[in-house]
């Protein structure tokens, strides 16, 4: 038994040695490097090739107005936009001093030494040379910001030294009011409204061929005010609907100057009407519909100007459109319809 045990131990040892020699070499590590694919973005970071400098700037966008029936509305949303310029936390007082002092690492670089020799280091940086907890805050601008704008921002926002335990300087985002206006206009929240029409036959809601179909958009808006703001600056867009274009298959396009007039008994004329020339009876029934329909598209055109907390002079923005659709059954009847 004893001998057997010894043999077994020896065999095991040999086996381990064999197995050990047969093990593959350790896998090469992944060495991260400049130009490598960025890590998957986390919240607030851009995706793809874009590399974020950190969280974006939150813009508050408020849309105020009232519907065509006089009901006021106010929508608020927050929009994340890429940062432009800000105060960023830099090195500790100790690290900054050690790096930039005469004889420090920076001075081994001709470029950085020349930078220092031109008096561009943080004023009074020697005073914080032993502080390992306080930090410098520097003006920083994202890569897409021009050098001229960055320079201007830096001159307006000199470096600040913040001792440990004291609040960091307020983040003064430097957003161009014109950019804020674009954000406001892009994110204005309009009530979609509901497209109505008349004739609207009982039971089917169908209109009829070769007769003016009065159209209006219920509970929509024709003018709004959108304000986009960050602390310290706001831009306000005044937008108004200037025309409504109606289009549908087998109907001539029509254009109105407002959202149309809701039908009322006895009404014989509307500035917002289309005439269908064919019945939809032969068309297939679309998903979600009970009858064959034609899609009626109401496209509202908006014109807008903007002002800002920095400039009260209205400036024009590009025309924008919003679209609302409705599925309209179109019937062909032989009798004369009396509204």
């Amino acid at each position, binding site marked *: 038994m004893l001998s057997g045990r010894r043999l077994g131990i020896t065999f095991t040892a040999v086996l381990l040695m064999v197995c050990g020699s047969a093990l593959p070499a*350790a896998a090469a590590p992944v060495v991260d490097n400049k130009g490598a694919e*960025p890590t998957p973005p986390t919240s607030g970071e851009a995706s793809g090739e874009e590399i974020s*400098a950190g969280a974006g700037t939150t813009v508050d966008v408020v849309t105020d107005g009232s519907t065509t029936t006089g009901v006021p509305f106010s929508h608020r949303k927050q929009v994340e936009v890429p940062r432009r310029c800000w105060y960023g936390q830099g090195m500790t007082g100790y690290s900054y001093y050690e790096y930039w002092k005469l004889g420090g690492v920076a001075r*081994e670089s001709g470029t950085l030494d020349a930078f220092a020799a031109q008096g561009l280091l943080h004023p009074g940086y*020697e005073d914080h040379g032993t502080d390992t907890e306080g930090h410098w805050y520097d003006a920083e601008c994202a890569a*897409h910001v021009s050098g001229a704008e960055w320079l201007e921002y830096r001159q307006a926002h000199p470096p600040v030294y913040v001792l440990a335990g004291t609040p960091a300087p307020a983040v003064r985002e430097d957003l161009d009011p014109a950019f804020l206006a674009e954000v406001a206009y892009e994110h204005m929240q309009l009530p979609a409204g509901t497209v109505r029409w008349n004739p609207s036959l009982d039971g089917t809601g169908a209109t009829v061929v070769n007769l003016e179909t009065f159209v209006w958009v219920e509970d929509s808006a024709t003018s709004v005010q959108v304000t986009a703001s960050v602390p310290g600056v706001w831009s306000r867009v005044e937008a108004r609907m200037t025309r409504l274009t109606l289009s549908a298959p087998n109907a001539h396009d029509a254009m109105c100057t407002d959202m149309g007039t809701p039908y009322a008994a006895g009404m014989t004329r509307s500035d917002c009407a289309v005439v269908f020339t064919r019945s939809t009876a032969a068309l297939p029934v679309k998903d979600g519909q009970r009858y064959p329909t034609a899609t009626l598209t109401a496209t509202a055109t908006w014109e807008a100007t903007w002002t800002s907390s920095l400039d009260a002079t209205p400036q024009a923005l590009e025309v924008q459109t919003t679209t609302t659709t409705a599925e309209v059954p179109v019937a062909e009847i032989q009798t004369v319809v009396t509204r």
Partner: protein
Amino acid sequence: MRLRRTMPLLAVLLVTVGCTSPAVEPPGLEATPTATPSVSASPTPRPDGILEESDPALGVVLEGVPALTGDEADVYDTIAAYEKEYWRTMTTNSLSPGFEVLASPELQTVMERVATNNGNNGITVDGTYRVSISDVGLAGDGTATAVVCSDYLGATFADPDGTYTPAEVGFGERQRFVVTLRDAGPTWQLSTSGRDGTC
């Protein structure tokens, strides 16, 4: 062009001198600093021509240095200084403070990630990094571009499990990068750096 760069600096210096207390050691500081403050009474304008040289102690060799002057030399120098601080970061797994001047916040983020990831994985990089900077071009709108070729064949790579050749860790070819810079008055700064195949 250099005169244009120097003039705003004088203004900055005057403001700085006017607002800064004399460089007297504050009471209670005993260990450091001991160096003379760097802000001098008269700023030293940058000499013309390329300033950056190879740094054998750091392990950076600048190859094929072109004969440039003016803004092109400034651009070259900024890139060369950036590459040195890049290698310092790679070999120390610690973000170089020089990036605050030389690199956009986005590139600083990249390099901070590189230092953190490599450090967390116990990777050590050493040896010689050869870099050549070419095709320096000024766009005329305050931006510039250039091509950087990074050669790691003289570098060594290791982690707790062993050592590796450059090829084994994906550094076996001369890597080509296209960089863009922006002119912010007294300094140029790298805005972006994108991998563009091999050299």
